């Protein structure tokens, strides 16, 4: 009954969206521990293994740059297998050039931030297009190979992407290459049910990728993958950066405050008078009537 033309997508066919961090300032800062070329050869070997795992597997690579993001590889439109790597590297070079030309700064302190929110959004858009292509499609997931520290300015955009991925049930796997953990990616993986991993031995990157991130979503049901030991998602107040268990939240922009404010410092909403709460409710002692 099935038309011959339609591909037989079984539940273990994957669409893997790989976001690679190409922030030059980050790679410059870790030159000695993990060279970008080493990283690339590990990743390329990993991508090849994904494509070998299942003939119908699809890999899309998005470069997460400092000034921009772009698709640099899509296995579904590459002509011949031998040219895959060549094609991708060429695209990557072009991308890096373009990314540089968009820059304005004269010098950058530290590793700088890469545009994670942008590449996450691009990955999700691509996945949405696949979802709409018909009832049969590969199972999508996103893998972030990320090194740059979290960019505070991207908070809202990144969180929106995470929630959007959660809504479309797309897991975000994270492999953190930098010195620091990434709170963004930790939340992303936690919320979307993906795997968060910060490899201890960067020399063995390929082994990490192949062991943890090569598993398709169907097989994950039968496997034990690394789980975080627990995440503290308690917030700190916007006013003093103190960790709080209970506080006031702006109903408009969800800013958190430890004390009642007249006006939200984040979005400017004016709050009504809080009801003077009478915490000194008389400690009513229950009188036990005896001998009634």
């Amino acid at each position, binding site marked *: 009954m099935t038309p011959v033309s339609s591909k037989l997508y079984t539940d273990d066919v994957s669409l893997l969206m790989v976001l690679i961090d190409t922030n030059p300032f980050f*790679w410059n800062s870790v030159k000695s521990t993990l060279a970008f070329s080493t990283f690339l050869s590990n990743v390329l070997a990993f991508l090849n293994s994904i494509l070998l795992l299942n003939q119908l597997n699809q890999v899309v690579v998005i470069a997460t740059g400092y000034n921009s993001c772009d698709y640099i590889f899509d296995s579904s439109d590459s002509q011949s297998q031998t040219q895959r790597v060549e094609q991708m590297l060429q695209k990557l070079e072009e991308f890096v050039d373009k990314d540089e030309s968009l820059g304005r700064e004269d010098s950058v302190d530290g590793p700088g931030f890469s545009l994670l929110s942008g590449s996450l959004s691009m990955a999700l858009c691509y996945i949405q297009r696949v979802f709409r292509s018909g009832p049969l499609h590969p199972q999508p997931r996103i893998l972030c190979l990320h090194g740059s520290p979290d960019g505070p300015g991207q908070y809202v955009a990144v969180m929106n992407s995470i929630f959007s991925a959660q809504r479309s049930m797309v897991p975000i796997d994270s492999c953190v290459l930098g*010195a620091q*953990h990434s709170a963004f990616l930790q939340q992303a993986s936690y919320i979307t049910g993906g795997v968060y991993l*910060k490899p201890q031995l960067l020399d063995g990157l390929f082994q990490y990728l192949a062991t943890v991130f090569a598993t398709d979503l169907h097989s994950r049901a039968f496997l*034990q993958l690394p*789980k975080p030991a627990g995440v503290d998602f308690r917030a700190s107040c916007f006013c003093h950066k103190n*960790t709080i268990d209970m506080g006031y939240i702006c109903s408009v922009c969800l800013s958190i405050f430890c004390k009642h404010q007249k006006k939200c410092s984040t979005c400017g909403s004016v709050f009504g008078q809080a009801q003077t709460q009478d915490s000194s409710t008389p400690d009513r002692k229950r009188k036990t009537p005896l001998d009634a």
Partner: protein
Amino acid sequence: MADKQVMKRAKYKSSVKDPGVAGVLKLNIERFVFMPNDPKASTKLNVEFRMITGHKFTKEGSSKQALLNLTQEQGGNYIFEFDSFADRDVCREFVAAAIAFHSEAGKATTENSAALVNSEQLSRAETERRIKLLQENSELQRLHRQFVFGGILTDAEFWATRKKLLDQNDNRRPKQRVALKNEMWTVKPLSDGQSNRVTFNLTPEIIHQIFAEKPAVRQAYLSFVPNKMTEKEFWTKYSRAEYLHSTKNVVAAAAEAAEDEELAVFLKRDDMLANEARRKIRRVDPTVDMEADEGDDYIHLPDHGLFQNETKDVLESQYEPYRRSFSQDLNQHAAVVLQGRLVDVELGDPRSVAEALSRTKQAEVSDEISNRNLEKELSDRISRIAEIEDLQGPRDPAVAPLSIKDPRDYFDSQQANAVKALGDAGSGAKPLKSSVSPREAYGSLTDLVSDIRVMGLSEPIMNPEVALKVLNGLTQSISSTKFHLGKNPRESVLDSLPKVTKEELLHHWTSVQELLKHFWSSYPITTKYLYTKVTRLKDAMSQVYPKLQEIKESVQSDFRHQVSLLVHPMLQALDAAFAHYDADVQKRSAKSGERFNGFG
């Protein structure tokens, strides 16, 4: 219940075929006694109900004899035949209750149950309800046996906290109304093969259904019978009409109808039905979206998959009234069945059935007429839904755009804790404070990329020793978090325990809850009665501690920690109760120094 008894005339039979010995059967909660009418007969019976394990009985309607068969524990049985099914049912119910009572009270001492029953004057219905609840709910039964027969709670105390349960059960008691049969009555002629006679079988149930589905037939019945024709003549004519329909010969039907005007009533299309249909169509919500969705794909099945060879011939218009569509019949039948039994009259008398049905229909129509608001409501709804866009004023967005001055605050509010949780706050301090020019950074990146393009991938990608290290590291960290509890909310700790332990724990939870419920509801202690109740409960609760300890010790060491985690809150709850008890005792003795225990 103990003082209740039932006495009925019955015959004791050794087997179903046996004519039996006439006599009187007396039942009470303890035993049943059979006394033959002939005092010299030797078949006297005096059997305790606790020896009886079950009962069987004949079904009214399917059997002529009203029998009740009591089966004994050690095999063997007692068969009684009653004068009527009504008598039998009274005894059957009593027997069922008595058997349930004894099987439930099986392990209790007789004194106990006698005291229990005598102390309360319960209605039989109430007792039955309780027994039924206990039979249906094994957990409840276990609690009941443990506490009531264990002497910790009285029966009344036990049930007092379950009034709601009893009431609920009570509400279910009204008899279920029997729906109409979902079967279309069609004429299946039972021809004897020799003559042309055709036999039909009409029961009151079928007549009811015909009246409900075919208002014209009902109307005809009311006006023809018995003035114009007898009941029998009426149904004969109706059957004739149905038979003609079943032959699908519209022309023949029309010809016969032309000669017999009464027959024509049955053969012509039912105008009352058509009117009713029109009325219903007028009342359909015009805003209903009738567009079929993918799920309604029956189109490929002719006649919706129902086999029916309807005549598709083109007929002259004079025959049109005699055509009847199967789908119309089917729809009408479905509507009637779904509506359920509208009238509650004895089905034996067709006339009263017909009248009752007509009355309900009449009432429906008059209801509708009085409900003139409906039309207004419908037109309102249309105007609301069928909004013409270009006639609407511009809609102002009722929202103000969100302006966030600095999203960095959100980040700061979370970053610190999340990273700290990973035990990595130390390295969070700026790793490199070097400043690089973009030119340099981008330059080295491009160089590295072109390196690969020129040199190819490094081979081997990595050292096997490193790979082994990575694998070992991963395995170790995974196995260390695997047994970390509470990771997966769907996974219950209980499920990982052995089944016996799990059940025992759950049972202890329910019994501890039961005890605590009674314990706390006894405070403040105002009467001597409450005082003794609390004392009883306290003793029972103190016995739970060693049992919980026992469970903890009985499980394997792997589970011990988990079990003690589960037992802990139970112990806490019990401790709290004891603390309260002790404090109360102290307060009482301090307060009433002169009076001994505070109860004057």
